Structures are given as C-alpha cells and as structure tokens.
C-alpha cells in the first residue's frame, strides 16, 4: 500500500535521507530502528507531509504523496504520532480526539462522534480522563492521547514514533499488545520507530535499519539482530 523509491531529503548540505526505498503491505507491522540521527523521524515527516522530499517518489494506494499537505495525507489514511507529544494543551482530552473525528471525510452527528471519542479514549486507557485538560496529563498519558488522536483519523497506516519511551515494563507489555492488536485485528499497517529493542524485536514482522540517512538493511528481527553491519552501526566496534 505504501511504496517509496529513492527518497532523499537534504537539510542544507546534510543528507538526512539518502536514496531510501520502502514498501509496506496492508496490516503489516514493520519496525524502524537505527542510531540517533539516522533519519527515522525525517522519514516519518516525509511520509506524513510535514515537509516535502528533495527527490524520490512516495505512493500510497496508488496515489502519489509528493507535494501533498499534511492534512491531505491524513485524509488519505496515514496517521502519525509525534516523538515528543504535541497535545492541544488547552483543550480537554475529549476535545483533543474530537478534532480528528470532525475532520474525517465521513462526518457524522456530534453526539455519535463524542461517543466514538470516548470509546477510543477508553481503548487507550484514558477512560476517566475525558474532561481533563491535556496539559494536565503526565507523559505516559500524553503518549496515549497521541495514539488515541491518531486512531481517530481512522488510518490504514499508522506511523508510531517512540511510543514506549518512559513506560515501565508492565506498561510496555500493555502498549505492545495494543499495537499488535491494531495490526492483526483491524488490519492497520504500522510503521514503528522504537528504541526499546526487546519490545519491537518481539512484535515486528520485519525490521528496517537506517544509519546516517541510508537504509542499512531490512529483514526479520532474527536476521537484523545477528547482522554484523547493524551491530557495527550501534556499537561502532
């Protein structure tokens, strides 16, 4: 469903992405890893339309994403979360999820949308937080709200940017279950950046490794974990 060929992004003289190819199937769960500064978030920003590519082609369900604005790409079915949560701070949690709901192409009654919003907040574990201002949530809750808002866009592809950071072991388990559930039961394709290796190696079908803007390799978690190039990129030895 998502196809990218020869993706490049330059910031001044720095090549943040250099000739990266990517391909995702419906309902797949793909991990995206790499050392800091490898270009993972840059790739997300390019797919989600936060900025345009220097060169290369991106296609989603046969439609070109090149030059499309972020809101347009969202309506095509691609949702993202931000590495540092960006909630609408002065709005309640319910209002936060209502924003994507009312902007979806299939618009319904306000009461029905409110009901759906509450259900999704419940689903991510913010069930009793409806009327709390988003700025009053703690980090873990803010990450859940990011996830809830992204789900409210009714995505076919979900871009998750380090949703596990700052969570304890138990919370990680619950979050991983939730993500696997999304891909298996709802058929949502997930592209997932994560530094918590234990979690992503266990959950992802395949892993893409980026290093210094280039795609180092792609393979099963098993292959990736034993590849000398990956070990070298991470440890520098």
């Amino acid at each position, binding site marked *: 469903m998502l196809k990218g060929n020869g993706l490049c992004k330059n910031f001044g003289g720095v090549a943040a992405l250099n000739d990266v190819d990517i391909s995702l199937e419906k309902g797949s769960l793909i991990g995206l890893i790499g050392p800091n500064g490898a270009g993972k978030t840059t790739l997300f920003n390019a797919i989600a339309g936060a900025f345009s590519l220097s060169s290369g082609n991106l296609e989603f369900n046969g439609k070109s994403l090149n030059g499309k604005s972020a*809101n347009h790409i969202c309506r095509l079915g691609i949702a993202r979360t931000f590495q540092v949560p960006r*909630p609408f*701070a002065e709005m309640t949690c319910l209002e936060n999820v209502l924003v994507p709901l009312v902007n979806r192409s299939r618009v319904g009654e306000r009461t029905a949308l409110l009901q759906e919003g509450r259900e999704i907040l419940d689903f991510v574990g913010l069930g009793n937080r409806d009327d709390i201002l988003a700025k009053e949530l703690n980090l873990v809750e803010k990450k859940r709200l990011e996830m809830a808002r992204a789900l409210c866009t009714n995505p076919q592809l979900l871009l998750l940017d380090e949703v596990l950071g700052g969570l304890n072991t138990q919370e990680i388990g619950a979050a991983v279950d939730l993500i696997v559930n999304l891909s298996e039961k709802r058929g949502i394709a997930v592209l997932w950046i994560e530094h918590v290796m234990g979690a992503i190696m266990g959950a992802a079908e395949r892993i893409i490794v980026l290093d210094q803007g280039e795609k180092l390799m792609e393979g099963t978690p098993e292959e990736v974990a034993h590849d000398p190039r990956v070990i070298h990129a991470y440890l520098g030895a």
Partner: protein
Amino acid sequence: MKNTKVILACIIVGLFGILPLGLNVYQQHVMIVCLFYVMMSASWNLLAGYTGQVSFAHAAFAGIGAYTSGILAVKAGLSPWLGIPLGVLFAAVIGFGVGLLCLKMGGIYLSLTTLGVSEIFHIIINNEYEITRGTMGLQVPGLLVEYSKTGYFYIMLVTAIVSLLVIYWMIHSNIGLNFRAVQNDEKAAASLGVDVIRIRVLAFTVSSALAGLAGGVYGHYLLLITPEIPSLDQQFLVLSMTIIGGMGSFIGPIIGAFTLEILSEYIRGYGEYHVLVFGLIALSMARFAPNGVVGLVQAGWAKRSTS
C-alpha cells in the same frame, strides 16, 4: 444548562430592547458606542483569542468598512443600506488577502505585519485628501431619514446581536474546534486532518468582515468618518477591552467593551489623567487576573464548588 443560557440571553436582549426608554440622549450615545466596541472586541477575539493570530489591523478593517460605504455614498450617491454590505464585502476581501499574506507567520511577526498593513491604510486615508477628506473627516449621510438616537440604538443593537450570533455559532461548531486546535498546535492539527490554511484564512476573513460591518454602521451613525476609526488608539482600546474582559471566551469581550467604555466616560473628567487610570487598570488586571474578568469569575466559581 443550555436552556438557562438561552433564557438568560433572551432576558438581557429584552432589557436592552427597552433600555433607551430610561436613558437620556447622552446615555443613549454611550450605549451605541458600547455596542460598536462589543462588535469590534468580539470579532477581534474570534481571530486573536480563538486562532491565536494577534492582528493589529482590526481597527483598519473597521475603517475599510466605513470608508468604502462613506465614499460610495458621497461620490456615487449610493444609499448606506447598500454601501455598508459592500463595505463588509470589501473588508472581507482585504481580510482574506491579509490572512494569506500572514499564513506562514505567527506571534510577533504576524502582529508586526498587520501593524504595517494598518499604517498603510492610515497613511492612504490621511493623504488621499480628494477622496477621503483626510483628517478633516468625510461627511456622510445617515442611515435614517430623520435623525434619532433611539433609532440608531436599535440599528446598532440588531447589528451587534447578528454579529454575536455569527461568532457564537462559529466557536461552538466544528469550525471553532478547528480554530482552537490550530491555536494550540498547528503541526499537530495538520497531522490530524485540519486544513490549517483554510482555517486561518477563514478566521481572518470573517473577523475582518465583522469589523467592516461595525465600522460601517458606526460611521453612518456619527455622520462623520475620520481617521480616528482606523487608528491604532482604537486598535489598542479594542485589544484592552478583549484582554481585560477575557480573551478566548465568548462573553469576555462583551463585558470588557461595556466596562471600559462606560469607565472611560466616567473618568473623562480627569482630562489627561484618564489615560493613566486606564493604564493602571490594565496593569493590575495583567498582574492579578491574567485571564480577564471571565477568568476571575471562573476561578471564583471553582473555589466555591471545591470548598
């Protein structure tokens, strides 16, 4: 809750309906000016308080409305009843343009740009003497055949109510939700499907059109349109009213407009010192009630309900 609000609004409007009966001519004038500022503050609040675009060109848009209608009446003999809608339309078009110009800007840069736009209009009006009569002011026909304060009061009241209804509807609809999302975090809003460009320009266009409406009606009430209407003094008065009343709330600018206009009539006797009194009020509000009168009341309510 919703019913009580509607009933309360009806009572207030009803009281305003019979208000001119108990007022003398001077007090009626003050009320008309109050209603003008209600429209100005409420429409500025729609832009600044709900989308975070702190424009300094709002008074200029009132000027565009007033001068468009005024010039059409004087030069082409057009009735103000037609001229004012044209002024509103023109203000909306210019507002749309300024909104586009400011798309990539936020915060202080947007404020500075709109300040520049405002000054450009001011300079044009001052210097195009042949058309605008410059600082002398443009004498224009009234809206009524026979001049009547009470008549103008009702015209202003109806205009203000229509403006407020438009604003109320907007901020309680999906548009208002999108306004606030854009104000809180533009990038996050875009990533969730909000058409940020459309929302920002829409806010500018509607807010400017409403300012044009207020300016047009006010100008034809005064019968003399001067560069005072699109002046920065006016702009900052509107800004103070909104902030002191409570920015980002529906009722705040209404309270602010009445409070400050009536207050300024009371302290007019102090001559130059009335600016000082104004400054002190603004200063103490900023220090002790940064969310305005509305914020103060809400905090009071919250305290009462917890204790």
